[in-house]
């Protein structure tokens, strides 16, 4: 077991290294002078040269990368060109809305998608299956802003039940926090739930075709017991693994959803950074988002290694 954990943890290093190289090269291989980009549109030639010297941009590329990577490993993600605040504290300030939206969306999607996916697999080929999967293909083809604006129009403008947009921190009271979160989480959650329901159904169908399911049915076990105790238990590993892989999509969806609902999270930070050409912030956001994705998937793999003795890579 310790060997497996060590190997799995070590395996994340090359992944993160590739992410770092991509994020680094993005700035340095793009057309245009990185020093001029970082210095901003109104910079004088002297400003640009100062940026070039202070960031070491006049040195060879490999040396620059080593310097930059060394900084990252010490938690130095650079300083925002626009606000002069360290990138990591900027991200930390914006973390709560994004985490709240992502978590709520995830919980909502899992609660909706798992039962529907399981029922569709159990009733495969019947009208129930067709209905569930038909709705699913509609939902995951829908653009998140279309669902979002439709919900806003109905719930916030026509019925005046919920706020149009914005966010209030949890510290300012649960009711307001929750009211601001319902519509965004619903918009993104519907799409994510549709995706999860499709994945759950196909995983369950794989398991339901296994020999031990036929044995369990043949020995006269109640359908509920077969479904929940035999099938779901064995399908849970691949289902949770696909949920973990879907987190990359969820992060992308969060960026758009935050923009629809004017939620001041990481996604809005990214868009603000793009309009201000605040490149260290963009780099930092990508690094942190990828790191979170890798960590969550590492945690899922490790959790299953503990729970399921068959899993050893």
């Amino acid at each position: 077991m310790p060997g497996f954990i060590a190997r799995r943890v070590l395996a994340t290093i090359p992944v993160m290294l590739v992410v770092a190289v991509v994020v680094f090269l993005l700035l340095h291989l793009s057309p245009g002078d990185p020093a001029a980009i970082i210095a901003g549109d109104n910079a004088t030639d002297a400003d640009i040269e100062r940026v070039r010297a202070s960031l070491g941009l006049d040195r060879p590329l490999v040396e620059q990368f080593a310097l930059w990577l060394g900084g990252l490993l010490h938690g130095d993600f650079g300083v925002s060109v626009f606000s002069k605040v360290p990138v990591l504290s900027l991200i930390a300030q914006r973390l709560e809305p994004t985490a709240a939206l992502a978590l709520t969306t995830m919980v909502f999607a899992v609660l909706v998608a798992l039962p529907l996916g399981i029922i569709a697999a159990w009733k495969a080929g019947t009208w129930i299956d067709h209905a569930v999967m038909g709705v699913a293909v509609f939902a995951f083809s829908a653009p998140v802003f279309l669902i979002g604006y439709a919900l806003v129009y109905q719930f916030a403008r026509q019925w005046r039940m919920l706020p149009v947009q914005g966010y209030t921190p949890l510290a300012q009271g649960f009711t307001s926090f929750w009211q601001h979160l319902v519509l965004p989480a619903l918009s993104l959650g519907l799409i994510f739930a549709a995706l999860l329901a499709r994945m759950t159904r196909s995983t369950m169908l794989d398991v339901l075709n296994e020999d031990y399911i036929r044995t369990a049915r043949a020995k006269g076990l109640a359908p509920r017991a077969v479904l929940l105790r035999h099938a779901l238990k064995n399908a849970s590993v691949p289902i949770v693994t696909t949920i973990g892989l879907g987190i990359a999509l969820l992060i992308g969806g969060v960026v758009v959803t935050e923009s629809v609902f004017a939620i001041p999270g990481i996604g809005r930070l990214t868009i603000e950074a793009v309009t201000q050409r605040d490149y260290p912030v963009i780099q930092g956001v990508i690094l942190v988002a990828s790191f979170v994705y890798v960590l969550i998937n590492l945690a899922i793999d490790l959790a299953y290694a503990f729970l399921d003795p068959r899993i050893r890579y």
Partner: protein
Amino acid sequence: MKQLRRHPRIVFGGTLLGVLVLLSLLAPWIAPYDPIPLNVAQRLRPPNAAHWFGTDAYGRDVLSRTLWGGRISLLIAVAVSLASMVIGGTIGLLAGYFRALDAVVMRVMDGLMAIPGILLAVAMLSLSKASVQTVIVAITIPEIPRVVRLMRAVVLSIREQTFVQGAIASGSRLPRILLRHILPNAVTPMTVQATYIAASAVLIEAYLGFLGVGTPPEIPSWGNIIADGRNFIMLAIWNVMFPGVFLGIMVLSINVLGDGVRDLLDPRIARRM
């Protein structure tokens, strides 16, 4: 005809997509107005007989802009799926066949996959001058790892089979083995993958435009129309809803068509999916 009736998804998705393609291609002839010039006297008119989809904040006809926007979305869908198939397919083919390449290439792909696609595209676009070409590149690169993985999996499952081993043993040259023996087996899964990538490319183009980093704002792409309309959402929801619904229908029709093609080409998977 009888064949088709057994695959209602192909009929449904194909018809829907066909209508949208036709409307987009015919936009220069059927669009009632020019989508570009401003007409401030007519701004933010609700849908009426002269402007079926209403007008936007600059007085432009939303129906005409939506029809023209379909052309951009179709162009991007075709370009992104072709480019990611060619680039990803080549990399996957080589990685699957040459063991020495495999480890390195797949680690790079794992790393690329860990970066959320929209963030990567946004970052690339923030550095380059906005154009339809840069948008295509920015959407294609995050799609490549999935294609590489698929192609590599196909190659790995084929290369040990007797007919490939036989071809190697009989001294066939490498390009012949790859192109004549291995590639044909990849056509089915790659075709299905290409349709899903096309659908996601249409959606991501709109998201990028919506976020303000997509095609140049003067081009009437669906993302740009919605980005223009979002500021007037409470006054003029038609600015967002009509292009949004067209966008949703296009993505839906490609996805349904993809499901149908998958059922048709691979009944074994179809039973499971």
